[in-house]
């Protein structure tokens, strides 16, 4: 895995990916809210979500979205957390010492060195989805790098019911990356290409990614057009997620968070099978939408974590760790 020096912009990244043939790489992004002067803020909290594949850091000032960094997880969680946080703070002069509370979350037992507390990603995703999409959200489907989970939430973002799978690669980002690598198509092009077909082909029949790979090889050898195979795979993944959701039941407003939410090929097919449309990927808060703040579905966990920080401080269940 070659390490690209620095953080490149999307187009440059795409070119390098094609050259290096690393079709599973997606662009890393960060942003700062220029409408907020953080030095005037009273409570600064942060959430760092170290996932198996991607790491996000979100900083909130008085409960408002201030900055974020979205990077690829590195070799271990402390390094990834630091990289994510560094990237998130890159466009501002804020330092970690200025923060009141930082909460770590993520896949498995992660070590987030700058966090004062750890809260499970299930709770953080629920709260984050509630903040991003609004109190009408009732079902959250998070499709992460190495796991997928379905959560029922109430209007305050509290978890009512959840089901997770982090054992099997099917239905996870990794499952899609393996496929993208196999056919040599960048992960972020999969969605659009899956619709450049004449007729919807039958889906890949194997659930298991390893067995699905053999099926794909067979289809490639039989001469099936690449886009059709992409469609078949997206269809299979959508069906797999449907199976998971059906156990829990889907209540609207239904949202999908995580990386695969950006894959229209899977999302549209899932919506079709469910006969339910996922909520539009726009901020619930009108000012955020109007001001064009970036809406990245992968941020739900880190946003939720930062919000928990806020709540815990308010309730007096946490002490400020601010040093400067």
């Amino acid at each position, binding site marked *: 895995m070659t390490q690209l020096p620095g953080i490149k912009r999307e187009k440059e990244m795409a070119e390098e990916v094609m050259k290096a043939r690393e079709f599973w790489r997606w662009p890393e992004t960060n942003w700062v809210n220029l409408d907020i002067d953080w030095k005037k803020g009273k409570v600064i909290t942060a959430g760092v979500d170290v996932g198996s594949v991607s790491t996000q850091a979100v900083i909130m000032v008085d409960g408002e979205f201030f900055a974020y960094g979205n990077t690829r997880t590195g070799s271990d969680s402390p390094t990834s957390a630091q990289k994510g946080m560094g990237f998130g703070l890159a466009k501002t002069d804020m330092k970690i010492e200025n923060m009141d509370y930082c909460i770590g979350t993520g896949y*498995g*037992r992660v070590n987030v060195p700058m966090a004062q507390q750890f*809260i*499970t990603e*299930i*709770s953080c995703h629920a709260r984050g989805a509630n903040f991003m999409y609004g109190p009408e959200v009732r079902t959250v489907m998070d499709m992460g790098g190495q796991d997928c989970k379905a959560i*029922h939430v109430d209007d305050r973002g*509290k*978890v*009512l*019911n*959840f*089901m*997770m*799978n*982090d*054992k*099997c690669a*099917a239905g996870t980002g990794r499952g899609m990356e393996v496929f993208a690598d196999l056919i040599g198509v960048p992960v972020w092009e999969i969605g659009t290409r899956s619709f450049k077909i004449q007729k919807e082909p039958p889906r890949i029949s*194997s*659930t*298991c990614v390893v*067995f699905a790979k053999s099926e794909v090889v067979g289809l490639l050898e039989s001469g099936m057009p690449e886009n059709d195979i992409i469609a078949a795979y997206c269809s299979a993944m959508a069906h797999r997620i449907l*199976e*998971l959701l059906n*156990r*829990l039941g889907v209540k609207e407003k239904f949202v999908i968070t995580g990386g695969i939410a950006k894959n229209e090929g899977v999302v549209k097919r899932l919506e079709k099978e469910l006969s339910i449309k996922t909520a539009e990927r726009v901020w619930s808060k009108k000012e955020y939408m109007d001001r064009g703040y970036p809406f990245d579905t992968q941020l739900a966990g880190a946003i939720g974590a930062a919000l*928990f920080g806020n709540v815990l401080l308010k309730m007096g269940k946490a002490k400020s760790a601010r040093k400067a």
Partner: protein
Amino acid sequence: MIANYGFKDGSGDWYVTIDTDKCNGCGKCSEVCPAKVLGVGPDEIDIFGEKPVAFVKHEERKKIKYSCAPCRPGYGVEPAPCVAICEPQAITHSEGWKLQFGFR
């Protein structure tokens, strides 16, 4: 809160479900489980929850298919020990074991 611990893969649905609203944190299920997959402690998911609840230990969640199989949950002559001993009936199993390993 309904917590489903386990996984779903090509071979089926393998979940141990604990209803934390019903669970009284007595810990008997954890004691009788022959595979020692259950624990009792603070609610990880509802961090504002006051009472301890039962859960499937983190390291056991991905292997639950094999851990629960000997107890024949859902299809044995008797209910699984954890299910039998739970007074509020807070613990149940998904159908994976019944479907994959057959009626007994």
